[in-house]
């Protein structure tokens, strides 16, 4: 029975991850960047699940589970921080938020 090569899953994961990076690099909006991070996390999750399939073990999925949980927590805190930043700086453009420098 012909199936999908495993490598395709992984390459899809890599492509999504690269898209995430691209979003992080080229978007200048804090929230979009944050979403790009989520995208990267999802790309990694896909790898985990794919490997879980490859080795026939559930551990990869457990990891995915943890990543989701942490991502949820992160999203909560991160968005709260974005809120706080917006309240003080009145902007979401990261290039304007650069006071932590030399």
């Amino acid at each position, binding site marked *: 029975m012909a199936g999908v090569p495993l490598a395709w899953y992984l390459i899809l994961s890599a492509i999504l991850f690269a898209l995430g*990076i691209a979003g*992080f*690099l080229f978007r200048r909006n804090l929230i979009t*960047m944050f979403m790009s991070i989520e995208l990267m996390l999802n790309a990694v999750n896909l790898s985990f699940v794919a490997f879980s399939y490859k080795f026939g073990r559930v551990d990869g999925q457990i990891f995915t589970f943890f990543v989701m949980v942490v991502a949820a927590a992160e999203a909560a805190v991160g968005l709260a921080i974005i809120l706080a930043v917006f309240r003080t700086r009145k902007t979401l453009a*990261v*290039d304007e938020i*650069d*006071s932590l*420098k*030399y």
Partner: protein
Amino acid sequence: MMEQLWLIPALPLAGFVVNGVLGRRVSKAVVHTVAIGTVALSFLWVLKTLSALMPLETAHVERYGTWIASGSLEFALEFAVDRLTAVMLLVVTGVGLVIHIYSVGYMAHEGGYYRFFAFLNLFMFFMLTLVLANNFLLLFVGWEGVGLCSYLLIGFYFLRRSATTAGNKAFIVNRIGDFGFSLAMFLMVVTFGSLDFAKVFPAVEKMPVEAAAGVVTAICLLLFVGATGKSAQIPLYVWLPDAMEGPTPVSALIHAATMVTAGVYMIARSWPLFTHAPLAMDVVATIGLLTALVAATIGMTQFDIKKVFAYSTVSQLGYMILGVGVGAFGAGIFHLVTHAFFKALLFLGSGSVIHALSGEQDLRKMGGLRKHTPITFVTLVCAGVAIAGVPPFSGFFSKDEILLAAHHHHPWMYWIGALTAGITAFYVFRAIFLCFFGEYRGEGRPHESPPSMTIPLIVLAALSLGGGFLPVPHFLDPVFPAMEGQHESALVFVSVALGLAGIGVAAWFYVLRPGLADRVAASLGGLYRLVYNKYFVDEIYWAAVVRPVVGGSRTLLWRVMDAGVIDGIVNGIGGRARDAGRLVRLLQSGNIRSYATWVLLGSVFAIIGMGLAGGLR
């Protein structure tokens, strides 16, 4: 048998310690009693020791232990007495005692009384150590120590800048001499492995002549550098005239009678070295003669009474150096002894004059004092005839012996020496005539000094007159090598005649025809100015040595080298590091997206690296 030689210097040292620690809290009477008492005891102990040790054919050595020991080198604390030392001990303690007594009167109204006597006692300690030392190191201890005391006492009036400057000058010029002395010591350690007289001298004797010539000549010349410093010879004599800033008893004791003769003593003491270095001996004799002449000419023109006698001292020291330089060690020491008498007398006498005039030292403001200060006048004339070499007074015997030995060495040395003798007579009597004859040219009321000052004058006058009959050269015969050759008695008359002529000229210039001297001086013009300004030696030294060294140190070494180059390099390294940091910190731009790019860059490299290394397989 121990004679407890150490007591001789230790007694004055005890006096120094007592006066130094307690002097400020006790009365003047206690201070000078302690000071004079210790010196007197020391003098008595010298007499006792010498009478016990006579006839002292060979040296009596006492060892008290080791001072410095390192590996095979050992430097002992050893005192020794032989006939040479005996003479020196008597001169130092004897003249020292007289001058201590004199100081009671002279210093009566000065501040820092205890300090003065403490320093004098300290000087006695070091001088006696110098004389008693049985090795060069201990001699050097005394040598440096007397230099210290000289410094302290020249700068005694430390509120006067000129006095402290003179003190510094004395110490530093002496240090230059000591530099030579110490190098000589190091060379001796290297060559002979010891500094003991008892080891060095026999070793020299045993050395083959060819081997000895170079190194022994070097040692002797270096020792002589030391002597030129301490005994004020060309080119290091410049400190001695300035040293007259000190109180007059100091000038008499340290800068006339004892300390400055240490160089002569040292050369005489190390005759076994010098006799093996004829070249060095010639240098010594020539320098001595030259110094005698040059200093005497300067002495003719000075108006400060103490300066006249200071240059006279330099000149007379030149004679002594000439004496030891031509191999007449006994004669040199003999002149040292007689000079101690008459020069101490000259200084104490001039001190008495200065005391009488409440501090006036300029001959042009004196005159006619023989009526006011008769004792001083008479004793000074005694000293004058002694130094002028008028027979049968002390200077005649000792000086003539040196001159005859010089003639035996090189006739031209005799003639220059004799000429100098004439000049000597002239300037001494010039001073005496200016001071005591004619009209009184100053202000204030001159008065005769107290007995504590005049009695020492009288004692010294007696010694100056009769000192020539002391059998010093004969007594020293066993110590020194015999001088061959016979006296040419005709020459005696020449020098005596020159001396008398000098007195005559002085009398003609300053008593019979006052004013003539000024006209002669004016007619000589530039030559007179040259001599009057002491051949500009101080100025030349200042311009050629002091200023370049100080200025060079300040600008070149400190500002340019230290602050500029070295610190520049150091700070430059620091600065470049900072610049690099400033450059690199631009990466820390605060822009998150830039950071992300760097992270990505790093990750790419890491992944490529891992891939290449096969880490992912």
